[in-house]
């Protein structure tokens, strides 16, 4: 399996009878690429991911533009076709605590998607879930399968969610600030895990984050969003070497640096 290209062109999103959230956002993710989507809270970066996954909030709608993914136009599909097209997409959510249903065992939350998308039987799906848990280096995978979410630590839950996201071999995964809710030591392991899996599964990744340090570690190219507009788009090395846009420069200035202690946070 390999990743597929994602082309978002001129995407506009607005609240019904309300303000516009995204103003003509365009971005391109090449097959197998990790594309960072950066911006501060409210910049609209999560909204891009939600458009792509078809999970916009009730009163929010796409007002223009196109999302082409794996050769198919996603904007304007009816709900059933939209769900079918989503088979090649997956999400690693931000908060591993609320992203697992507290009243269902891990095994059922991992296997439901495989039975739906891959047509596996329960026992085939369980075997695959176990294999995926091994792949995300979780301790005691057999035990984890039969536990409830509240019996796992935050890091373990995020590993379960990552395993679930990769389980159906999607062509593109949206990672929505997957490390924000974790503590710093776990963040690093989770980030490495996502990168390793992305490489071995050849998946494209749209990595939504506000953390430029994370972008530098994991992404190939970056889009910077500010107030619903793209302000800069470049390969990572290029942008880190010389951020062109004033907003991007301000973002860099706001990143605390251990080699320049006492710097002013803009």
């Amino acid at each position: 399996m390999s990743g597929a290209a994602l082309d978002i062109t001129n995407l506009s999103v607005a609240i019904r009878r309300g303000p516009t959230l995204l103003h003509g956002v365009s971005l391109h993710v090449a097959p197998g690429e990790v594309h960072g989507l950066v911006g501060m809270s409210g910049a609209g970066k999560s909204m891009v991911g939600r458009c792509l996954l078809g999970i916009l909030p009730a009163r929010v709608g796409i007002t223009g533009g196109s999302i082409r993914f794996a050769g198919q136009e996603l904007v304007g599909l009816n709900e059933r076709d939209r769900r079918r097209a989503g088979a090649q997409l997956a999400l690693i959510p931000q908060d591993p605590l609320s992203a697992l249903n507290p009243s269902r065992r891990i095994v059922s939350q991992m296997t439901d998607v495989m039975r739906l998308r891959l047509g596996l039987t329960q026992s085939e799906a369980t075997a695959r879930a176990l294999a995926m848990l091994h792949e995300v280096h979780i301790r005691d995978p057999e035990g984890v399968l039969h536990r409830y979410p509240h019996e796992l630590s935050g890091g373990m839950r995020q590993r379960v969610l990552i395993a679930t996201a990769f389980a159906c071999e999607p062509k593109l995964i949206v990672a929505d600030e997957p490390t924000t809710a974790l503590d710093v030591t776990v963040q690093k392991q989770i980030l490495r895990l996502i990168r390793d899996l992305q490489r071995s599964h050849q998946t494209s990744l749209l990595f939504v984050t506000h953390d430029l340090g994370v972008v530098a570690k994991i992404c190939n190219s970056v889009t910077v969003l500010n107030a619903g507009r793209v302000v800069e788009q470049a390969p990572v090395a290029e942008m880190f070497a010389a951020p062109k846009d004033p907003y991007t420069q301000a973002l860099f200035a706001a990143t605390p640096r251990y080699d320049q202690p006492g710097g002013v946070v803009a």
Partner: protein
Amino acid sequence: MIFRRILLRLLQAIPTLAGVAILVFVLVRVVPGDPVAMMIPPGADADVVARLYAQYGLDKPILTQFGLWAAAAAHGDFGMSISLRQGVTGLIFSRLPATLELVAFAATVAVVLGGALAVFGIRHAGRFGEGAVDAVTGFVLSVPDFLWGLAFIVAFGVLVPLFPISGRNDPSQALGLASDFILTESFFRLRWGVTADILAHMTMPAIALALPLGAMIARVLKSSLAEQMAQDYALLSRVKGFSRWHVIVAEALRNAAIPTVSLTGVQLTFLVGGTVLIEKIFSYPGIGSLAIDAVVNRDLPLIQGLILTFAVLFILINLLLDLSYAMLDPRLRHA
């Protein structure tokens, strides 16, 4: 573990019941009204009156009366009904099944109706359907159960006679059943003609009782469903490719049910209390209508027995709901 919890709760119920017993015993003797005066013609002989007082032990000091009553009650003997001249225990046990079946039917209707409205409202969140559900539940809540009962009698008993307006079953048909749980028994004896007749008699009182509870359930369940649908796991489930219906019913409903169950517990006791008026309106032979007659006749032993029965029902309902939390929420199971 679970048996220890049940046992503990049952032990806790003893002081509660004792408190209820004392309160009722004193109250029915303090409020105006005289059971003996209700059973004799005006201008009766003073000797007769004195003899009746002595017969029912009403001439003794209240503390002595209570001691005698409590000692007998501890053995399951709640005395003789003054107005009906039968044992209170036997009377209550012969009428209780009718009320239990009515309450069970009404509660089922309320849960199904409330659940369906809540799920429908959430499925159409932010659109016309949700507004319609809010409007309907608001209207239903603002009308008390006995008014619904009267309205049903006029509408579906008199104007469009769809359902019988009184009683529990067609008296012209011999039942020939062993227990007083005639709905349940006739169903399991496969005498479904009788079951249908009983259900027809129950429909209007049960729906009248169920409407306010159902509307309340719909409101609370809908708001906690909305909360659950905003959780990341509900979004993730949609990303996985499940339909909105699936996410509501298979993912969110169980978690949303937990706060609803605790409210239903409190409201269900109101439903049991509501049977008093509803049974009277529909001449339904349960303990509710028995209670009204007992109060009208100042039948002290019967009132005491009935109120204790209601208290036991409330305690049992709450115990059952308490146990259902652990079933619904795995986080409470090990706690």
